[in-house]
């Protein structure tokens, strides 16, 4: 005889299960690395997880790793922007009118309180970063050709990430339109990462981080010179300049000057010219 209730059993029934959210949290370890070096370190642990064979055989792995890479990029932008709010009085002035949750004052340290501004903002979005840059840092990324090109590529990846997060990688018509891919009737597309595309994605993120890091540093220093915040005298300038240099400097890349004192030296003549009105 058939069970009259059995028609409801289209699948296994749910059961009692729960997660103690605190169990997945652990104290955040402070890093001595600058945001860009922190980004490099994270990427270098993530990318080797996807071998050529694993990525070919496991459709989910590439997407998961790509999400991790974009997340590391978003983390960089949060760190550098909040770091600038702490290190730069001009940016701090612009941020003064921003609203933050009251509780953030207790949760974040003095150095990282800037993070509270971005609590409700996704920085895995090229356009959002550009908007915040204009609002807080006072310059337009779009006017810098090389950085603009880096952001355009990053924007593509953000679209792909969007599809990966919200529909497991199946691409909607809107996704295709945003990516400039022709849609074929009856042939919907989904995301799949091979080693080459995963590495290219990591390179694109690295590129946008580098472009932004160089640009934001240059613009901030130029802004300080324009605002006459620097005197050219190391004894006076170091209190502001040294933390700014450390915020942007990559020890891993080892380019330019190895420390803030040496990096400040060639600025002296530029500052002197600006102060005399010749620059």
């Amino acid at each position, binding site marked *: 005889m058939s069970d009259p209730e059995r028609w409801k059993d289209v699948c296994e029934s749910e059961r009692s299960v729960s997660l103690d959210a605190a169990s997945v949290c652990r104290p955040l370890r402070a890093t001595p690395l600058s945001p860009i070096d922190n980004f490099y370190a994270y990427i*270098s642990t993530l990318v*080797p997880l996807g071998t050529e064979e694993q990525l070919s055989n496991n459709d989910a792995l590439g997407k998961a790793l790509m999400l991790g890479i974009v997340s590391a990029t978003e983390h960089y932008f949060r760190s550098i922007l909040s770091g600038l709010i702490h290190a730069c009085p001009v940016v701090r002035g612009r941020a003064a009118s921003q609203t933050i949750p009251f509780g953030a004052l207790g949760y974040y340290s003095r150095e990282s309180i800037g993070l509270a501004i971005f609590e409700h903002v996704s920085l895995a979005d090229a356009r959002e970063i550009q908007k915040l840059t204009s609002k807080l840092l006072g310059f337009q990324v779009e006017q810098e*050709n090389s*950085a603009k090109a880096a952001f355009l590529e990053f924007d593509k990846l953000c679209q792909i990430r969007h599809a990966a997060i919200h529909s497991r990688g199946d691409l909607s018509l809107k996704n295709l339109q945003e990516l400039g891919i022709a849609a074929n009737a009856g042939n919907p597309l989904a995301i799949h990462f091979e080693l080459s595309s995963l590495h*290219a994605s990591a*390179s694109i993120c690295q590129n946008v981080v580098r472009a932004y890091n160089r640009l934001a540093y240059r613009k901030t220093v130029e802004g300080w010179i324009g605002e006459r915040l620097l005197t050219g005298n190391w004894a006076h300038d170091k209190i502001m300049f040294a933390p700014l240099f450390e915020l942007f400097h990559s020890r891993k890349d080892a380019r330019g000057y190895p420390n803030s004192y040496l990096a400040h030296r060639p600025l002296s003549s530029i500052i002197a010219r600006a102060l005399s009105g010749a620059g």
Partner: protein
Amino acid sequence: MNLSAQQPAVWAAGTIDQDLALTAVFEERAENLSQDELWKWSAETDRDRALLVKLKGSGTKLLSGPRGSGKSTLLRKAYFALLEDGQALPAYVNFSRSLALEPLFHTNANAPQVFQQWLIRKMIAGVWEAVQLISSATPAALNQIGPESIDYIQRLETGQDPPKLPRLISPSELLLLLETWSKEVGRSRCVLFLDDAAHAFSPEQQRDFFEVFRALKSRHVAAKAAVYPGITSYSPYFHVGHEAEVLEAWYPPDDEAYLTTMRSIVQTRLPAALYDRFEGKTEIIDFLALASFGLPRGFLNMLSYVLGVDDNASVKPTRRNAERAVALQAESVRNIFSALRDKLPRLKNFVDVGLDLQRAVVHALRSFNSTKPPGREKTAVVAIAEPIPTEISRILGMAEYAGILRRGNSVSRGVKGVFQRYTLHYSIVLAENSLSLGKSYGLDDANRSLASTSAHAFVRVQVPGLLGPSFAERCTIDLAPCQKCQAPRISEDAKFCMRCGAELKDLSVYDELIHADIDKLPLTPNKIRGLKTHTSLRTVQDILLDQEAIQIRKVPYVGPIWSSRIQTAAQEYVSV
């Protein structure tokens, strides 16, 4: 008979300042010759005239030939002809400095955009220069964009940061501008002569170039580009044959009029004092002409060697000198091939296999020819059984670029299969005695054998027979290991080390080339030694910076001709 009595009046007293002109006589690059020099010193065959008609006419054309095959001469001649004929507005543009922009791809995210603007601005600068020569009234827009473009180009080519342009010009906008400017200067159409256009050592640049090139086509605009055989790869949307007709610049040495043409180059180009030294020794001229394998630049090099130009002005052409010149020419051709190791570092192993292939071809020809008694038809042609493996096709393409091999037609031998014919450079054939002429052959014997080779005689070969059965294992892409942990790079696509996660950096080819030791240049050992002993020049960049040749001229026996040749070698080493 006094040979110079047969010469045209080019060298008559008072026509040309002979001291200055001698440098130009042996000038290897057509773009460095004036309009007068070009017309006077380059012989013109029926074949050249047919090519010039196509170059001056409408339609997109690709002019193909290896280094020194006369592509620039043809483009420059067509350019000057159009300047004078009043119908079309021509522009001559040389892209040989494109490698200087390659470092940008390592330092700028918008490098493709900068490169495209460089291409477009080079063309605008070329039009602007042409208009200055033909019209007193430069179109207003051109007068503004032209000088601005020249400044932009100069800054990019000297390694400065890409300057900001007031606006970007797209290929389709360029097309409209060219049509407008032609009309404004009273010419019905515009023809662009794009020299050194195959950016063979940077795939990104090559792809970008052909995307611009294919857009420059309309009823009133035609573009002609000089490319290399074998090594040029076109963009995915550019279909050779459909988008452009290929014209062959390389003069075939088995052409009936070949020797007559090459003799006339000597007659018109050399001053009487030098030309008369060949009296009673015209077989040396033919020997060198054949050894040059249809590449005029090689011919001029060998002539200057046997005449002792720069080294010893009293030298008389001898058989020994001629053989030495041919051996040096063969070495120089091989050096162009070997230099691909530096320009395409990933294909180092392919270059090594290519040199083995060349040796195997020499050996195969020698064995074949040794069975042919004197008077019987000898050959410099090998026919390789098809299908040719992909990696070997790539190597053969590289050999075509250098001029080591010249691809001919394929030939079917029924059940034995289809074979692809390749002719070995005659200087290598002669230097390696591939004709098996014996130890004491006369130059006439060599000339007769080469001049009478038939396309129907060839040595049939299989790739495994030439290189051994395991040749494919040697044709691997050479990928630099991780700079941090030395783990091997797993593929060309890998951008991060799969062991330590560090970024895998691709070095700039241009930076490597410019800092290369002068040993790498295709110069004689004597000249390299001279440079190292008598000057402080050590790298290719040092030579490029010695623009007035002040240091170079300190080397004994280096006068204007050799100093120009040394500088040309350095320029070409860092060029496409």
